[in-house]
C-alpha cells in the first residue's frame, strides 16, 4: 500500500551544546564514603599530576529529562532499518537483525566484559569467537580465520598486509609491487593496496559486464603481488569464469584476495576455496545479521589458506581441547590490526545467526535473497525511465545496479532527485553507486531475504509513483524533499569538501566567528 501521507517529525532542535544552562546536571554523583577515600584516596589523587587538566572540559550541562527529549527527537528524524523498507541501500545488505541477539549482547557478562579479564573468566565468549571462526572456515573453505578487524576495509587491509608479508618471506617483496583490482570492486580494495604502498592497476568491465579478462592477461607479470576482486560485483553479475582469473594470477606467482563483504547471495552455493582464492573476508555486520551502519562497530572476519596462516595478525585464538586462550601469532605475523580482540558483540550476533539457521538455513538465505532481488528487478525494470545496463537479460544474484538515464534524458530528473523524493514516501535515502560511476544516473537496490513480497511491492509502487511524477511534474521531484525531517535541500559540499566539513563544536564556533 502506498503511503501517500507520510510526514516525518521535524524538530527545530538546537545542537546539544546550545542547550541547558550553567551548572545544570543530568546525574549528581554521590561523594565517596570517608572510609573509601581513606584507602583509595580521592579521584583527584588517582590521576597523575601530569595528566590533570587545568581547566574543566566544556561539556554539555543539561538535565536528564531534557537530554532524553533531545535524543528521542533526533531519533524521530532518522529513518532506520526498523522503521522503513530498506531495500534502497544496496551493497549494505540491510537484513533484519534479530531482536533476540540484542538480549544476548545485553547480558551482564557481555556488557561488563573487559579485555583485561583473566582468560579463565571469559571461556564462554572465547568459545563463541573460536567456534564462529570454525563456522566461517566451513562457509568459505579457508583454513584459518580471525575476527580481529573492526570493519570490512580493515580486514581487506589485513589481507593486503598478509600478502605483502608472504611475498617478503619468499624474497619477492621488492619485485612484486603491483596489485590488480576492478573498477566495480569496493574502493576499499585499491585504497588498502595503495595504503600498503602498492601500485594499483584497475580493470574495467568488458562489453558483457564482467571484469575484462583480456586486460587481466596484459596486467599480470612477475611484478604482480595479487588480485583483489569481488564476485559478484555491485552489478550482481556472478562471474562464472572467476577460476580462470584466479589461475592466471597464480600462474605468475600472485595471490588472490576475494572481497566477500557481501556474502548474501552465495551461502551454501559457492565458496572462495573452490574458486581458488587464497584469502577472503566477510563483513559480519552485513550478511551475518549484526547491525550495519552508523560507522561501526563492525567486524571484518579474515580468512586465509594454510600457507598464509603464519602471517595472520595476532593475537591468535587457540583451543587445546579443554581451554580457549590467546596466544602469540608467531614470528611471521603481520602484528596487530586492532586493539585487543576486535568487537566480540558483533561476533556474538553472527554466532547466534549461524547457529540458529544452520547450514540449510543459510543456504535458504541465499536462495531467498536471489529470489527477492530477481522479483524486485522484474518489477523495477518495467518502470518507465529505468533500465538495467550491462548484460541485459542475464540474471543477477542478490543485488543489481539500475540506471535512471532514460528518465533523466526525458525529464531532466536525476537519480539524486529521486533519492531525495523517496524520503517523502517514508523510505530511506538510497545508494546510487560507488565512484567513479560507470553507469549513469545509478541506483543500487538490494531486496534481502527478510523482506516480504508485500514489502517489495510497496517499494516498487513508490518508485512507480515517483517515475510518474517525473514525467508529469518534474519540478515536484526536483524540489524534494517536502515531508522529511529536513524542509530543504542540503548543500552537499558541506559533506564532501574537506575545507567546509565541520566535525566538532569547537570547529563550528571558529567557523561561525570567522563568518561574523
Amino acid at each position, binding site marked *: 500500500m502506498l503511503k501517500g501521507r507520510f510526514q516525518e517529525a521535524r524538530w527545530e532542535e538546537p545542537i546539544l551544546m546550545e542547550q541547558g544552562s550553567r551548572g545544570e546536571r543530568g546525574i549528581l554523583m554521590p561523594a565517596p564514603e570517608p572510609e573509601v577515600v581513606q584507602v583509595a584516596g580521592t579521584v583527584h589523587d588517582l590521576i597523575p599530576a601530569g595528566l590533570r587538566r587545568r581547566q574543566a572540559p566544556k561539556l554539555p550541562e543539561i538535565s536528564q529529562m531534557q537530554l532524553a527529549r533531545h535524543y528521542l527527537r533526533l531519533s524521530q528524524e532518522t529513518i532506520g532499518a526498523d522503521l522503513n523498507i530498506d531495500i534502497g541501500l544496496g551493497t549494505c545488505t540491510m537484513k533484519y537483525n534479530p531482536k533476540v541477539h540484542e538480549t544476548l549482547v545485553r547480558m551482564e557478562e557481555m556488557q561488563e566484559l573487559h579485555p583485561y579479564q583473566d582468560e579463565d573468566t571469559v571461556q564462554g565468549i572465547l568459545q563463541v569467537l573460536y567456534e564462529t571462526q570454525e563456522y566461517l572456515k566451513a562457509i568459505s573453505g579457508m583454513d584459518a580465520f580471525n575476527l580481529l578487524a573492526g570493519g570490512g576495509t580493515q580486514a581487506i587491509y589485513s589481507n593486503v598486509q598478509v600478502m605483502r608479508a608472504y611475498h617478503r618471506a619468499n624474497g619477492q617483496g621488492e619485485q612484486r609491487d603491483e596489485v590488480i583490482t576492478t573498477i566495480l570492486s569496493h574502493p576499499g580494495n585499491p585504497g588498502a593496496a595503495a595504503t600498503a604502498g602498492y*601500485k*594499483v*592497476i584497475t580493470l574495467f568491465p*568488458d562489453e558483457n559486464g564482467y571484469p575484462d579478462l583480456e*586486460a587481466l592477461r596484459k596486467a599480470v607479470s612477475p611484478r604482480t603481488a595479487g588480485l583483489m576482486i569481488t564476485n559478484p560485483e555491485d552489478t550482481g553479475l556472478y562471474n562464472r569464469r572467476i577460476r580462470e582469473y584466479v589461475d592466471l594470477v597464480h600462474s605468475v606467482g600472485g595471490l588472490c584476495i576475494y572481497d566477500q563483504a557481501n556474502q548474501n547471495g552465495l551461502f551454501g552455493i559457492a565458496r572462495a576455496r573452490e574458486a581458488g582464492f587464497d584469502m577472503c573476508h566477510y563483513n559480519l555486520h552485513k550478511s551475518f545479521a549484526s547491525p550495519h551502519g552508523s560507522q561501526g562497530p563492525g567486524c571484518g572476519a579474515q580468512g586465509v589458506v594454510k600457507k598464509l596462516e603464519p602471517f595472520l595478525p595476532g593475537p591468535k585464538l587457540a583451543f587445546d581441547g579443554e581451554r580457549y586462550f590467546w596466544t602469540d601469532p608467531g614470528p611471521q605475523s603481520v602484528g596487530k590490526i586492532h586493539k585487543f580482540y576486535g568487537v566480540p558483540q558483533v561476533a556474538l550476533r553472527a554466532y547466534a545467526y549461524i547457529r540458529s539457521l544452520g547450514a540449510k538455513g543459510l543456504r535458504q538465505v541465499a536462495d531467498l535473497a536471489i529470489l527477492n532481488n530477481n522479483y524486485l528487478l522484474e518489477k523495477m525494470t518495467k518502470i518507465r525511465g529505468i533500465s538495467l545496463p550491462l548484460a541485459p537479460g542475464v540474471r543477477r544474484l542478490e543485488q543489481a545496479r539500475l540506471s535512471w538515464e532514460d528518465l533523466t534524458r526525458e525529464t531532466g530528473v536525476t537519480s539524486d532527485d529521486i533519492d531525495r523524493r523517496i524520503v517523502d514516501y517514508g523510505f530511506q535515502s538510497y545508494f546510487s553507486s560507488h565512484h567513479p560511476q560507470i553507469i549513469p544516473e545509478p541506483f543500487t537496490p538490494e531486496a534481502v531475504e527478510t523482506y516480504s513480497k508485500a514489502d517489495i511491492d510497496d517499494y516498487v509502487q513508490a518508485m512507480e509513483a515517483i517515475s510518474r511524477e517525473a514525467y508529469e511534474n518534474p519540478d515536484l521531484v526536483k524540489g524534494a524533499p517536502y515531508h522529511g525531517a529536513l524542509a530543504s535541500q542540503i548543500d552537499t559540499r558541506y559533506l564532501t569538501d574537506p575545507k567546509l566539513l565541520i566535525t566538532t563544536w569547537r570547529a563550528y564556533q571558529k567557523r561561525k566567528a570567522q563568518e561574523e
Partner: protein
Amino acid sequence: MIRLGLLVNPIAGVGGPAGLKGSDGTAAEQALGQGYVSLAQSRTVQALRAMGPLEDAFQLYTFSRGMGEDAARAAGFSPIVLGTCGEPTTFQDTRRGAALLADLPVDLLLFSGGDGTARDIASAVGERIPVLGIPCGVKIHSSVYALTPQRAGELAARYLSGGVPLVLGEVLDLDEEAFRRGQVQAQFYGGLLVPKDGAVQHTKSAGYTPGDGGEGLSQAIRREMRPGALCLVGPGSTLYTACKWMGIHGSLLGVDLVRDGCLLQRDCTEHQLYRALEEGEQAQLFVTVIGGQGVLFGRGNQQLSPQILRRIGQENIRVVSTKEKLADLRLRPMTLDTGDPELNRDLAGYYRVLVGPCETVLYPAK
C-alpha cells in the same frame, strides 16, 4: 535506385598539424603555405571504400573535383557531378551543394569536414535529409560524425541497406579565435538527422580538471618521464593542469616539448616536432583522451601525425586521464583515428592509463 550524396570540404583539418587548432579564415592559407596538406581526400576515399562492393546498388551525386568527384573516382565510383566550384572552395560552396542534394533529395548525405562544415550543412539542410559526417576536421565536438572514416563508410552502408534508425545529432562549434587563445567554449548550432549507432561519436565533454587540481597526475607523469628524455605533451585540460603542478606552463591546446621538467617549446607544429625527433633520441609522448568522445589520436592533436607516432612507438606513449573521464566513456574503447589505417591497427590494444600517483587503468584503444 538509392541516391547517395557526397560533399567534401577539401581543406578540412589542414590547420591541425600546423598547430592552428582549425582551418577557418586565414588559418587554412597559412597552413597550406607551410606545406601542410588536408587529409580530407584520403579520409573520404577510406570511408567510401569501407562501404563495400555496392557498384550498382546506388548512384552517387557530388560536385566537381575536390568537393567530392576526385575522392569518389579514387574509390572506384562513377559519380554524377551536379556542378562545378571555384578554387579554392568556400563555405558557400558547401551550403549551396548541400541544399541542392537535399532538393534531389538524396537518401543519405555523406560529408567530410569538421565542426564548421557541420554548421554549414545544418544551415543548408536542417532536418530535411539524413546525413553522416566523415571526421576530417581539427577538432570535432558535434555528434554527427562517425568515430573514424572507416566506420563512417560501414555505417552508411548499413543505414542504406535499412534497419538503422535516425536520431537528432548535435552540431557544436567553437569560436576558433577564442580557441587559439586557449578558451574552449562550444556553442550549439542546431541538429542534424544521423543514423543512430555505436559508430557515431559522442559530443565532447569539456574540461575534466582533476579533482585535486592535477597534483596526483603530475606525480604520475613525473615518475614516468625518463631523465634526459625528450617528452611531447599533448593538448587538453587534464595534461595542462597536471603540468602546471610540475611548474610547466605549457599550452592548453597545443603540443609542447619538455625535458627534465623544463619546457623547451610551446605549441609546436608537426614540422617542429618532427625536427626535434630527428635528433635521434628516444622520445616519450604524454596524451589524454577526449572526454565523452574517447578519441585518443585524430582530434585536436593532428600535430601528432602518423610519421610522428611511428617514430615514437607505442611503447613510449603514455595516456593520462582521470578515472572519471574513463568512466564516462561508458565502456567504449578509446578511438584511434590517426588517418593511417595501418597505424591505427598497430596502435590498437591495451594502454596502462595513468589515473593517479600510483594507479593505472588498463583500457583498450581501437
